[in-house]
């Protein structure tokens, strides 16, 4: 591979996803200028907070070489816990903390299954996806509407603003990603996660407690999913045991689009954020264009495949030079 190509791929690694986002925004802007109005772009940003927050945590799981298919069920469970607690008279803070605590337990369970029982992440979280969904249903069999009596404080997370103009969801999103960036690049935890993802066996020989870190990773994933659930519940004002169905796909898509390698070891914090924004933006744009159900699905699939094809070309070119 020529020097110029090498440079190109280096730049692409850092900015590729951003470039694709620009292209996407451009295309939609041409199709319907209303989509790229500032207020609309702000809406897209706000709307991407839910999947974005969960994707931030999911990145760690994928970086460590696994993934978490149960985040959708965790989100549903979170929503149910908040609704039940609020309508039983508990305060908002208590409800949210209870939900986050429950999610941490779920993450802990996931981690245990994967490290102590040595079940592969894919099948372990497949199983817990079922189990947690069932628990959500047992806990709360019908949807619970959070009327104005209960949701006034919670609503702030969805409609409130910081400094008078930054929507809270974006604040949450940025906060999560800033923390994630610091953790990923500046803390031993981040380094170790990456190391485990690259070569778990080697890390084990150094005496680092790999199992403990993996459990922590899955707790992180679960708690971010719960945070996303808190925001989601605030937005729709309803506790619903099926709220998170299919959600794991959104989170994983965002992470992968962002450039995090599925084989582990290389995460991309900023890329994950951009990936989440891109998916949300495409869906929003298609809605505004009035595109039908089938074509929306096809569009997302094409975006995904397109982004990965480029990645694939890069791999091929890198392989060739070897």
């Amino acid at each position: 591979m020529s020097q110029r190509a090498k440079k190109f791929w280096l730049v692409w690694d850092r900015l590729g996803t951003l470039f694709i986002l620009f292209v996407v925004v451009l295309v939609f802007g041409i199709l319907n200028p209303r989509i790229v109005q500032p207020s609309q772009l702000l809406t897209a940003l706000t709307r991407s907070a839910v999947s974005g927050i969960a994707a931030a945590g999911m990145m760690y799981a994928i970086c460590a070489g696994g993934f978490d298919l149960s985040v959708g069920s965790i989100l549903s469970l979170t929503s149910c816990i908040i609704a039940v607690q609020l309508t039983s008279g508990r305060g908002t803070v208590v409800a949210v903390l209870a939900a986050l605590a429950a999610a941490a337990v779920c993450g802990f369970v996931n981690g245990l299954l994967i490290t102590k029982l040595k079940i592969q992440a894919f099948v372990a979280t497949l199983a817990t996806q079922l189990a947690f969904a069932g628990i959500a249903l047992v806990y709360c069999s019908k949807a619970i509407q959070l009327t104005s009596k209960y949701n006034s404080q919670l609503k702030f997370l969805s409609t409130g603003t910081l400094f008078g103009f930054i929507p809270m969801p974006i604040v949450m999103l940025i906060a999560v990603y800033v923390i994630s960036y610091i953790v990923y690049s500046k803390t031993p935890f981040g380094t170790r996660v990456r190391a485990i993802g690259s070569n778990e066996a080697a890390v084990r020989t150094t005496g680092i407690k790999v199992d403990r870190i993996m459990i922590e990773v899955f707790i992180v994933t679960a708690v971010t999913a719960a945070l996303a659930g808190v925001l989601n519940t605030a937005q729709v004002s309803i506790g619903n045991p099926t709220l998170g169905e299919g959600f794991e796909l959104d989170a994983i898509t965002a992470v992968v689009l962002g450039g995090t390698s599925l084989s582990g070891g290389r995460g991309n914090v900023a890329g994950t954020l951009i990936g989440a924004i891109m998916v949300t933006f495409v869906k929003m744009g298609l809605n505004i264009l009035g595109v039908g159900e089938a074509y929306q699905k096809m569009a997302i699939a094409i975006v995904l495949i397109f982004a990965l094809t480029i990645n694939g070309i890069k791999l091929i070119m890198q392989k060739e030079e070897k």
Partner: protein
Amino acid sequence: MSRRTGKNKPHIEFGDHGILYALIIFWVLLALTNENFRGVPFYQNILTRASLNAICGIGMTFAICSGDFDLSVASQVALNSVILTLLLPQLGIVPSIIFVLLVGTLLGSFNGFLIAKLRIPSFIATLGMQMAYRALAQMVNNTPVVVSDKLFKQIATYKILGLIPTAFLIMAILAVIGNIILRRTQLGRHTLAIGNSRSAAAISGISIAKTQILIYLMVGLFTACSSIMIVSYLGSSNYGMQTGLEFTVISSVVLGGTALSGGKGSIFNTIVAAVFLVTIRSAMDSFGVNSYWQKVIEGIILVIAFSITGVRALLRDFMVKRKARKELALQKAAA
């Protein structure tokens, strides 16, 4: 063979039919405790139903043996089925079936192309195609289609001599074919080799790309067979059908002992595992287990079953460590 060529020997314990014994014991236990499990029709239903998934599982076993999987099979079934039900009244049974098999092969090959040539990781490639094929199915026909051809519907429901379900028989034949491919052809050997160690396989001259395309082609083909059986069983098609099928099939394969990391696998065990999973559902229904708890239980059962290898590994670890400690103690005593 392996000594001559130096290729990796697929280390499947051919005597490892633990899950078959487990299934039989399970059935006996259920028969003793639940009247449903004492009637022949009940078992016929279980076998028929399991066969539908198991056929797809044959192909999926190949994919997982090579260290990859295919998340798009549910959508492939949807697309195949919609096309099939539209063609049946026009072309008749045999031409329609042939056409659908071709379509399935095409879909599988396309997946293989993405994964082998464009180097897209199988998880994401098939995740994306899952959406695409589903969308295609919806574009082809967005309303349910009912099959009126009685003969076609017999394919999955007829019982030979009133006893053996045709679906089971067809599945068994396909399983034998699949097994022959896995154990006795070059494709099968290469599949297992790639699963064992991709770099080692590449070094020994195996064309990974070609093998992968063939693997996914087979997944597509067997999935198409599965689609035909499913349409016969349901008597209809609907673009939204069979969601979640990929997870049932993958669960069957993994439950059957084929490791997700690849390198070893058994089609026979996949089939038995598929039957086992259907048995669990039927058992829970027969015992009137609350539907919410059914989800929880299924999750727990999957965990228990999947953790067997892990528990084995833990035990092995423990035994090895114990042995090492003993030897160390002996050495110290001798010194």
